[in-house]
């Protein structure tokens, strides 16, 4: 099946294919984030009661995102797409620092380091794809304001071990949560935009 039967004019990856790839990637990123969180939790966080402090602790909580199916279906799909873009952008910086800080972590297992690097790379790849998708769904509409700044680097470098461990725990907990949100919203958007909500 030739990819561009009529030559280069108008020859591009279809929206349906873009969504297929984005959903596969978001699913993969969340699975990795979950595994990384669980591994860190088992190895470093047992019995420290970090979960109670993790409440209200994500740097992206300023981005008001839908909390259930009805809300997610009521919001306009372009706004939801831009929210996904905003959450993804908000993770570029922390993921970059996570990789370097995990490297300086005493006996951090390679598996956590590999996952941090893989997530950092795939997150950038998904961001590129989402910008392409928004470009096709709503041409001329790349909003740059939706974005939440991260200022957690100092806490990852604190001398006190318990505080530092909690900072990592909280970052991985938020990554697991936000990557799940992105994956969930993209699967909803794909069914809505490509399959007319009849997946």
């Amino acid at each position, binding site marked *: 099946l030739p990819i561009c039967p009529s030559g280069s004019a108008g020859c591009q990856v279809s929206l349906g294919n873009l969504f297929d790839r984005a959903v596969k990637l978001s*699913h993969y990123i*969340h*699975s990795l984030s*979950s595994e990384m969180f669980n591994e860190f939790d088992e190895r470093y966080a047992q019995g420290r009661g970090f*979960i*109670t402090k*993790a*409440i*209200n602790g994500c740097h992206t*909580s300023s981005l008001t*995102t839908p*909390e*259930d*199916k*009805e809300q*997610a*279906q009521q919001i306009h799909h372009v706004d939801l797409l831009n929210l996904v873009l905003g959450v993804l952008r908000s993770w570029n910086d922390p993921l970059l620092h996570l990789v370097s800080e995990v490297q300086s972590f005493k006996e951090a297992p390679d598996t956590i380091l590999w996952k941090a690097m893989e997530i950092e790379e795939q997150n950038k790849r998904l961001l590129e794809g989402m910008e392409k998708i928004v470009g096709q769904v709503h041409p001329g509409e790349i909003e740059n304001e939706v974005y939440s700044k991260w200022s957690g680097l100092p806490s990852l470098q604190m001398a006190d071990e318990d505080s530092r461990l909690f900072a990592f725990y909280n970052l991985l907990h938020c990554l697991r*949560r936000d990557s*799940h*949100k992105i*994956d*969930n919203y993209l*699967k*909803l*958007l*794909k*069914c*809505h935009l490509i*399959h007319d*909500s*009849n*997946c």
Partner: protein
Amino acid sequence: QPPGKPEIVRCRSPEKETFTCWWKPGSDGGLPTSYSLFYSKEGDKPINECPDYRTAGPNSCYFDKKHTSLWAIYNITVKATNKMGSNTSEPHYVDVIYIVQPDPPVNLTLEVKKQVDGKPYLLLKWSPPPLADVKSGWFTLEYELRLKPEEEEEWKTFFAGQQTQYTIFSLNPGKKYIAQVHCKPDHGEWSEWSSENYVQVPNDIEMKDM
């Protein structure tokens, strides 16, 4: 004396839209003891009481859609009270997205069919659990089925991805096969196995694999 300390034993969401928690009472101190479940949700301060103690049966609290938020940590406790005093469980922290376990798939059917070259194959079909909203994309399910000749011990499992049908080629003629199917959300736990269904592979089917 005052009641023993109750314990929240399990919380589960069947479709990422509602969820239920169950608790195990402690000793009742020989006196009539009542139980109340309290929760607070990440992001808002007030402590609320369980919205529905009945729908999910005894020692349970059912959170309907209106009371269920995803991506938010619920801090849940259960308090046992009798005339002599009360006792509160340890807090139980829940984020609904990590307690998702669907109901089993339904309407599993098995049919022996023949290929063009006469060779038989088994076509299994099923439907997603009714509660799960797969159509909108809110819930993505993957399926796995297991099959074995009736008299055998060992099941053979087949992963069917997101399909709701599966074909199995290498069959034994004259055998009665049993099949079950279960499902898993994209990020969550496997459901229980569905009820069993059977099919009898006729004897006269010509069976040359090699």
